[in-house]
């Protein structure tokens, strides 16, 4: 195919169909075509992690994927987590622990945490830091983010916090 390609996908549970130019990045598709600007675009070459989304149950960098590669996929973005009035537990934990300041990196962190809470044991804070190492924050430092994730891991594992 040389022109636009038809893709069908679900984003946050909602089905979408769109015609996209093959060179369009998944991040730009979510933001510019679907208006889901919660997925942020920082470095655009896979370094900063702020464009992280969940695709078919695992985290992915939407600046390192093409929109055409989302064909048939189930995508979750930060908009699918919660709202200000009805936050997702991960968002609540970030709120409680002051794990954000300017908020630019936060969508990427939240989506990464969605993945690692499911996929990794995260027994120690060192493991949490390693799991978060693909996401860069320039405001808070990482202590509060690690504390938020520690709380979530303890809740997951049924440990007294």
């Amino acid at each position, binding site marked *: *195919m*040389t022109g636009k*390609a038809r893709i069908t996908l679900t984003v946050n549970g909602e089905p979408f169909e769109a015609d996209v*130019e*093959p*060179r369009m*990045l998944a991040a*730009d598709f979510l933001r510019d075509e679907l208006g889901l600007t919660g997925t942020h675009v920082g470095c*655009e*070459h*896979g370094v900063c*992690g702020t464009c*992280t989304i969940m695709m078919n149950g*695992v*985290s*992915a*960098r939407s*600046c*390192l*994927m*093409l929109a*055409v*590669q989302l064909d048939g996929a189930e995508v979750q973005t930060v908009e699918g987590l919660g709202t200000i009035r009805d936050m997702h537990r991960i968002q609540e934990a970030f709120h409680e622990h002051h794990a954000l300041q300017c908020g630019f990196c936060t969508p990427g962190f939240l989506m*990464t945490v969605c*993945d*690692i809470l499911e*996929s*990794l044991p995260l027994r120690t804070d060192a493991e949490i*830091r*390693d*799991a978060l*190492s*693909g*996401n860069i924050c320039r405001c808070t430092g990482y202590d509060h983010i690690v504390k938020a994730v520690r709380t979530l891991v303890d809740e997951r594992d049924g440990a007294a916090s």
Partner: protein
Amino acid sequence: MMKPAAFEYVRPETLAEAVTALDHDDARIIAGGQSLLPMMNFRLVQPERLVDINRITELERIERTKTGLRIGALTRHANAARDPLLAEHFPIVAEAMGHVAHVAIRNRGTVAGSLCHADPSAEWPLLVTLLDGEIEILGSDGHRSAEPSEFFLAPLVTDIEEQELVTGVHLPLPAGPSGMAFEEVAQRAGDFAVVAAGAMVRVENDTFAEVRLGLGGVFDTSVRARALEGALTGQRARAEELEAALPLAIEDLEPNDDLHASADYRLSLVPVLARRALIRALHRATQ
């Protein structure tokens, strides 16, 4: 703003379709895309045709063969890290995958992508070099395989021809019980290695039946420390023997200066990481 230049997108469903799609003057294969897309976003790479092999599901398998394990080209780093067959026979793979970039990139990046990108600091080229892997290649003339020393020609340069793709890599099982270990120094978690070392040790009758040391980041490609390997084979299986052979590890290495590390610093890391890897491998081999 960094966006890829326009290209034609082709998404084959079978290997035969992929080979056909590669019959083009300027086609590139995209697997996980974790190295290719940054280069396309920077427009360092501007293929006219992009052949997306992600739908060729037969390339995702890891399977036992008569003599080893075959890892499909599209195996994601994250899946390799938790694969039970690899954990049983090559636990060094999961250890090394912990050094590959970050969670999201491991979910997407592939074995063949890493091999074909051929970064001299990358983990998969080093593992395949250490483990005497055979890289399996399909082209319009059929199947062929290449040893790491034939496949990796220079930084980011491989023996892959225009109308060929890597379908997988075969790792032969060691000739007997062995110990393996992986060590790496990088500036930050997930960065490319400044230097990486992988070791494999096999002990029989209290003697080194086989010692292998692979190094990354210190030459144009991953390399084996053949002088050290040869000197240790047949020696008593003791840590002191390993220590005594360490100076041989830097023989013939030609690291480069770059913005991450000087050549001298890279050279100074080699015996440190080689020692750690070899001693842990020996310990595991004799447990």
